[in-house]
């Protein structure tokens, strides 16, 4: 099987969908000619393959980029636009939150907005808080948006293809740390459904729900816990909205314990939503209080020791697991 970083997997998905459907086009800052010449990046080579008519480099204008997607999608095109870093979602957010997410509803179901907003995210680059700020919970708070955060290259490819074919606006968040971690990706064509979590590791003692850049540390923590006789089940959420309650609840039913782990900050983070769902619908399954392993409530600092302090890791998960098992 081929091994690809997440950026390459995204690149394959874009390529395949652009070949399949002439309505698919991409737009964003540097999606054609970029300051990076790097085969690991998601849009490398697309301009050469599809030309400037379908690979649109835009000015530094996030509101216009998002609005371009909304308007073009209403006309039946399938835009895939890129927001360079997650914090710049705020500049695009009016078009996404107030328009992409609401206009179908406002039309009484007559219109649809089949667009994808790809966002590069994640801490760990020493770039500081105006480049690293995970805002997935903001997007998930908006009815009308699907929010996807894959953790593996294979899922990224299959889910981006599904997102492009989906008739809803999809926020597709890629962790840049995963661009450089080659992982197996099937050679043949496939789609991975949105809204379906994936159990990446079976376990009987504890459920860990996680996504995106945190899957790696969660899996390695699970291995270490296993050496101490604690078997963690790792649920890779993959899609935040619509939320796959069924997979979460049935796992918690089996294990009786829950930890939610995400890189984003704690207060108002999506872990709170999952915790609430489990309290409402799976309270009787719980043998111990649930735990959240998250970033602390601070902007992501630039200095390496501070940034490492920020990013939740294997050790934090092991500690939380031992508190409740």
């Amino acid at each position: 099987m081929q091994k690809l970083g997440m950026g390459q997997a995204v690149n394959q998905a874009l390529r395949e969908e652009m070949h399949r459907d002439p309505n698919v086009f991409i737009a964003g800052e540097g999606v054609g000619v970029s300051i990076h010449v790097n085969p690991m990046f998601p849009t490398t080579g697309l301009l050469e393959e599809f030309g400037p008519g379908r690979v649109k480099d835009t000015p530094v204008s996030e509101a216009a980029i998002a609005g371009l997607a909304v308007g073009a999608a209403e006309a039946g095109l399938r835009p895939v636009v890129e927001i360079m870093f997650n914090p710049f979602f705020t500049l695009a957010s009016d078009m996404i939150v107030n328009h992409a997410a609401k206009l179908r509803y406002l039309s009484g179901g007559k219109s649809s907005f089949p667009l994808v907003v790809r966002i590069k995210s994640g801490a760990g680059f020493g770039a500081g808080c105006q480049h690293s700020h995970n805002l997935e919970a903001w997007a998930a708070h908006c009815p009308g948006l699907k929010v996807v955060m894959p953790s593996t290259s294979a899922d990224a490819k299959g889910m981006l293809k599904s997102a492009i074919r989906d008739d809803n606006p999809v926020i597709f968040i890629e962790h840049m740390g995963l661009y450089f971690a080659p992982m197996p990706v099937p050679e043949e064509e496939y789609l991975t459904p949105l809204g379906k979590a994936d159990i990446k590791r079976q376990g009987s003692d504890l459920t860990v729900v996680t996504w995106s850049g945190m899957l790696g540390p969660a899996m390695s923590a699970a291995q270490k816990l296993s050496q101490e006789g604690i078997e963690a089940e790792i649920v890779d959420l993959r899609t935040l909205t619509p939320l796959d309650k069924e997979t979460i609840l049935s796992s918690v039913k089996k294990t009786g314990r829950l930890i939610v782990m995400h890189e984003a900050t704690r207060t108002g983070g999506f872990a709170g939503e999952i915790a609430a769902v489990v309290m409402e619908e799976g309270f009787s399954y719980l043998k111990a209080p649930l735990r959240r392993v998250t970033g602390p409530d601070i902007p992501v600092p630039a200095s390496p020791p501070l940034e490492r302090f920020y990013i939740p890791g294997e050790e934090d998960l092991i500690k939380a697991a031992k508190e409740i098992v």
Partner: protein
Amino acid sequence: MEIPTQKKIEMLETMLLSRKFSDSLVELCKIQGKIPGMMILSTGQEAVGSGVCAALEPGDVIITNHRSHNHLLSKGADPKELMAEIFCKKTGCNKGKSGTLHLAVPEVNAPCTTTVVGGTLPIAVGRAFAQQYREESAITVCFFGDGAANEGSFHEALNLAALWQLPVIFLCENNLYAGAQRYEEHTRVIDLAKRAGAYGMPGVIVDGNDVQAVYAAARDARQRALEGGGPTLIECKTYRCRGHGETDPQHYQPRDEIKQWQEKCPIPRLSDELVSSRVISSEELKGMESRAEKIVEDAIRFAEESPYPEPHEALEDVYV
């Protein structure tokens, strides 16, 4: 109006300091693990920050963007504290929270470096509003690039500043590139300064590699603002001689274009004039260069020797 000799010397000094500072960073940022984050430099654009800041008084404010080092040094920020922050050390001006990209030096009225493109413009409006509100004899300068002029914030900020006649200079550092895009690939209007008319404010085009021209334009705009004449848009035409950041191979910038602009370097342009008109001797120029070099060496040593912050310090400074 004549430019005082002292001002010319001051501008040469800040340009030399900025150049030595960025030249040292070119090398330092190649060393694995030495400096985190993206290294964004303004080599060749020194005339802009140096010329503008020479026209300001200490009470005037600057709001700057990702390409900030020259602006901050010219405004009088301590090179040691800047360098230590760039190294992400505890002794840096922001205790390692900001790193190279978000240097904040409120002590010299440079309270904010924002890397969100276009972020400087509305903040400058607010800062200038406070100056007007308190009837201060001071202005705000907002630095931004040609790329930033295509964010919606540009439109909102310029309109509001003109409407309320706020004491602000919108200083567009047009270095011909925004990321990998050449100017004409992102903007149709030939001179950004022309947009000023649409907001009811004067727009001025300046040779951004001529520090004296930059100084004069900033001084005039400042004077007008202090007299209640409101904002000015100044477009300094210059060139980004290096990549967007230091990892950018500049594959999209024609080599001869880079070379042509390197030949228009603002530093010899001023120093040659000062030497040939005998304002300074070539020995004095050498002395100025080695003083700048010494300041940068001291700053690097200070940064190297400083400790990193303790991890738990990450939790400090979120709230007052």
